[in-house]
């Protein structure tokens, strides 16, 4: 151990660790357990910010800032972006479909965590060096010196990696339009030719209580017709099915009218 070795950090850092550490763990747990992806993303962002603080506390000033700017700022935003794209309310149920998955996961997690922590504990480091010397010329300068000398190759290769990733992402998401978009006239002619939906699609909310765009119209037998709802809403699963309510209402109406008619008949009979 060098002369710089110390055996404990300041009390302030300890306090900060315990408080923010708790926050980080809670954030992580919430990331895993929140039902909606947006909430998970926000909780993850919180954890990341806490980690940024820890980086700063550990003398990694550059990384701490990068964590906030790049990670929390850019990457998490990308996540949110995709969450929005895929659908905010497309909540995945937390119900487990794979048999035994939960139990196995729990077993593995417990085993893994306990063993990992036990392993760290077994090493039993009591002293540490601190970064005072390394950071003496400034953390950013220190990092820069390493990146552009010792790790310059790896650095260059990461550049290639990023470019590749960009191209890859473009390739994966880009959809080439291979043909001219059909005009409305052509679409209409096609419908006639195929004899499907020659008239316009039915409007939403017909025969229902509401005529909001997300409520399907009802067919004569009282079941909802999904055709009446906009395709986008349909795919997001954002259809409010009111058929049951409507049927109940109808039933109640019939009941009421029957009662009234019955009463009238009784009155007639009574006369």
């Amino acid at each position, binding site marked *: 151990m060098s002369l710089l070795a110390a*055996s404990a950090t300041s009390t302030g850092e300890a306090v900060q660790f315990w408080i923010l550490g708790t926050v980080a763990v809670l954030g992580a747990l919430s990331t*895993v357990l929140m039902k909606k992806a947006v909430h998970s993303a926000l909780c993850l962002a919180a954890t990341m910010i806490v980690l940024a603080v820890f980086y700063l506390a550990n003398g990694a000033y550059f990384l701490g800032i990068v964590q906030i700017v790049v990670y929390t700022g850019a990457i998490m935003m990308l996540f949110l972006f995709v969450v929005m794209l895929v659908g905010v309310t497309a909540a*995945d149920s937390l119900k487990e479909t794979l048999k035994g998955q939960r139990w196995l996961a729990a077993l593995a997690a417990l085993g*893994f965590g306990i063993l990992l922590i036990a392993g760290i504990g077994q090493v039993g480091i009591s002293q540490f060096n601190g970064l005072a010397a390394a950071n003496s010329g400034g953390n950013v300068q220190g990092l820069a010196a390493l*990146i552009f000398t010792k790790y310059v190759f790896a650095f260059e290769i990461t550049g290639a*990696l990023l470019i590749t*990733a960009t191209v890859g992402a473009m390739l*994966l998401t880009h959809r080439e339009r291979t043909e001219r978009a059909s005009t409305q006239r052509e679409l209409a002619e096609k419908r006639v030719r195929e004899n499907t939906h020659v008239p316009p699609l039915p409007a939403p909310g017909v025969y229902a209580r509401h005529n909001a765009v997300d409520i399907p119209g009802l067919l004569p037998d009282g079941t909802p017709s999904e055709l009446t709802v906009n395709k986008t809403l349909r795919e997001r699963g954002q259809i409010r099915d009111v058929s049951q309510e409507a049927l109940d209402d109808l039933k109640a109406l019939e009941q009421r009218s029957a009662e009234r008619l019955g009463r009238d008949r009784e009155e007639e009979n009574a006369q």
Partner: protein
Amino acid sequence: MNPVNYLYLAALLFTIGATGVVIRKNAIVVFMCVELMLNACNLSLVAFSRMHGNLDGQILAFFTMVVAAAEVVVGLAIIVSLFRARHSASVDDASLMKL
């Protein structure tokens, strides 16, 4: 306090992240959990850097971030195209090794 505690924390976060990967079905959340695991690693790297008294650990963490960024870009692109094909972001729906 000893900086070893950061390692304990990192281990805990890693485990939580790994568990999340295993039990969540939403691909985006799974991905977030992967990010959590990466972050946990970064934390331990930073702590190592401090304990060893040199900056190599931080450099490694830095590279991890770069790789994570690249991974997120490609991964999210995959999720988007998967969603387009299957209208679902659930990892269990992509179980046939083909589209």
